[in-house]
């Protein structure tokens, strides 16, 4: 660990899109020189345009560009970068990459490789958390030899429980058991299904957390053993396990629960010798019990909502920590002010089952004004390619309370225009009209449930349809008014056009 601060004068950002822009901004504010890598698909991307330096790292596919650990470390050395910021995704949680950086004398802006490795293993991290007194989902991966053994284990952790195949995955060999009566039959069924599916009939059980929320604690840890919590984010709104809306604070967390979760998160980080920014994810049960899920050993996509309610700049602190600076005292008891939401703007078509929607952004108007923050990685006129994660931008809003923040979000979405491609924006307006969401009564499966039931399908009002008709007719008249008049005089040729088209169809 650094004895005295070593200023990181030049930092290489090993990422792209909005998170590269986020890190660039922090570096520019701190007066540090910023360098980005780019793939051929990203030569004229927004992060490149905003960077002090930009270096080609390979062709478009990630495996040949943003995932080339050795090449990126080599580049950092070549250009004299003092450090690498990995962003999220790509190499951000690769302990191997962090170690490569260390070996090359380039500071990795993140935790020590050992902490990453410990948290990267599901079994190892669970063991460490239990040892550190961090609550984990009761149960365990020890095989249960008989119905009686299963019944004893279930009684110990309490119903309902979930039987799972040790070799399993994908729901095969899984059985939900609500009470002791159903256990023996479910045990036998699960074993037999596990044998059939995986050739291994070992099963174990875990307590079932019903209607859980995903609540996570943001922590900062310096390289001198200090760890602080900056409160929670509620990320329960997920589509197929992908977060789409986050908020802070959580409507389900009060001050005492926040304190308990924060203490658990700080213990979790301390247990692995963590340093830098990190997030401890928990499942929160409706009764207020919470259970360690995993730790994300990097900056999170949704970090801005914590920044909005605390006033703390997490990326600045990542830099400061990497320079060996100790955490400031005022971080010990940060006050939460107001309420923040983040919605993720993906290039996906919510009217079409979230199909990817690459293409040129013909128009981009970001909302502005009070309480609005845009974390956007693209610009108007840019072509969104098929090569990477479809996250284009995040819209973040702040309000004095949850109600005001929702009003701002709705207002901001009404200003937002992304044209030429489809995005998830319409989903959020539908969500803002949903009574459960408005009351803050959500759980991790709610979005998928509602989508499956067709409840959140964005709709077009009769008025909007009429406007579409009007606008198209006006445009057509202005463009073709003269041509149309002419076409009356050559009706026969129009018939020809029709015939030509018919031929083409027959030819297929």
């Amino acid at each position: 660990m650094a004895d005295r601060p070593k200023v990181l004068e030049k930092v290489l950002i090993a990422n792209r899109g909005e998170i590269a822009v986020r890190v660039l901004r922090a570096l520019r504010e701190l007066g540090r020189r910023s360098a980005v890598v780019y793939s051929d698909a990203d030569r004229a991307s927004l992060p490149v345009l905003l960077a002090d330096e930009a270096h080609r790292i390979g062709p478009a596919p990630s495996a040949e560009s943003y995932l080339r650990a050795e090449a990126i470390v080599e580049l950092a050395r070549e250009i004299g970068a003092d450090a690498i910021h990995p962003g999220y995704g790509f190499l951000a949680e690769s302990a191997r990459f962090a170690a490569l950086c260390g070996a090359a004398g380039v500071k990795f802006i993140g935790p020590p490789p050992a902490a990453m490795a410990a948290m990267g293993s599901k079994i190892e991290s669970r063991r460490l958390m239990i040892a550190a007194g961090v609550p984990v989902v009761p149960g365990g991966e020890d095989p249960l030899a008989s119905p009686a053994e299963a019944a004893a284990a279930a009684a110990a952790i309490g119903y309902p429980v979930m039987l799972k195949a040790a070799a399993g995955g994908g729901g095969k060999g899984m059985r939900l058991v609500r009470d002791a009566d159903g256990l023996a039959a479910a045990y036998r069924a699960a074993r037999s299904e596990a044998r059939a599916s995986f050739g291994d009939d070992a099963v174990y059980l875990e307590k079932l957390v019903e209607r859980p929320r995903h609540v996570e604690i943001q922590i900062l840890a310096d390289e001198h053993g200090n760890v602080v919590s900056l409160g929670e984010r509620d990320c329960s709104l997920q589509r197929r396990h992908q977060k789409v809306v986050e908020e802070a604070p959580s409507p389900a967390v009060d001050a005492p629960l926040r304190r308990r979760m924060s203490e658990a998160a700080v213990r979790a980080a301390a247990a692995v010798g963590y340093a830098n920014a990190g997030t401890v994810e928990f499942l929160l049960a409706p009764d207020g019990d919470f259970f360690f899920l995993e730790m994300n050993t990097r900056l999170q996509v949704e970090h801005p909502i914590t920044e909005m309610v605390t006033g703390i700049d997490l990326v600045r602190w990542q830099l400061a920590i990497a320079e060996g600076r100790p955490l400031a005292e005022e971080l010990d008891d940060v006050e939460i002010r107001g309420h923040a939401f983040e919605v993720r703007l993906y290039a996906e078509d919510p009217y079409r089952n979230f199909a990817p929607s690459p293409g040129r952004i013909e128009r981009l108007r970001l909302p502005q004004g009070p309480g609005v923050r845009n974390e956007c990685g693209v610009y108007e006129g840019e072509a969104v390619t098929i090569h990477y994660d479809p996250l284009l931008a995040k819209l973040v809003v702040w309000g004095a309370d949850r109600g005001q923040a929702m009003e701002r979000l709705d207002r901001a979405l009404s200003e937002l225009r992304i044209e030429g491609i489809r995005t998830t924006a319409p989903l959020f307006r539908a969500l803002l009209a949903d009574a459960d969401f408005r009351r803050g009564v959500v759980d991790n499966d709610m979005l998928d449930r509602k989508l499956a039931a067709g409840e959140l399908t964005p709709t077009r009002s009769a008025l909007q349809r009429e406007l579409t008709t009007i606008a198209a007719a006006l445009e057509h008249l202005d463009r073709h008014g003269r041509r149309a008049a002419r076409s009356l005089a050559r009706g026969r040729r129009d018939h020809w056009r029709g015939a030509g088209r018919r031929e083409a169809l027959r030819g297929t």
Partner: protein
Amino acid sequence: MELIVKHADGDTKVKIDRRGAEYQLQIGDQSYVILSAEAANGVRSLLVDGGQYEVSVRSLGEDRYEVTTTAGAATVQVQDPLTQLAEVAHEKQGGTGRQRVAAYMPGRVVSVLVAEGEAVTAGQGLLVLEAMKMENEIQAEQAGVIAKLHVTPGQAVDRGDPLFELEPAGQPDRGAGGQV
């Protein structure tokens, strides 16, 4: 001037006249007087019945337009009645037949789930396309037989590239004018 605006959910007939910045529109038995002003980049401000609406209209070619309102974007096609007549005539002559399906976005073919000549049911998965790190299964819109496959696994496709052709079940009957 009369136009037909073809939405995904049906056609709307419009009678429209322009006098300077003012447009007179008739949709069904509803009449509108509309003031339109162009902002920039395809954006218009429409004043209709005391309301102001920002709409954006982008030409996609072939008289197709993408119109964006506060509710999002929709693609419509505008036709004058003569073109419309030509198309109706064509359909009456039994022009529908084999369904040719093209890629609606660029991507890579991950797997082909059917073979040429195979009978498929409506909704059955035919092939899997990958784009933006997500896989998308292309399903049969109707029952029929795979008449032709244009792609193989691993192949890159562009928007508009043909993927396969489907001969709908019972099609020959319909083509001959019979009732299904």
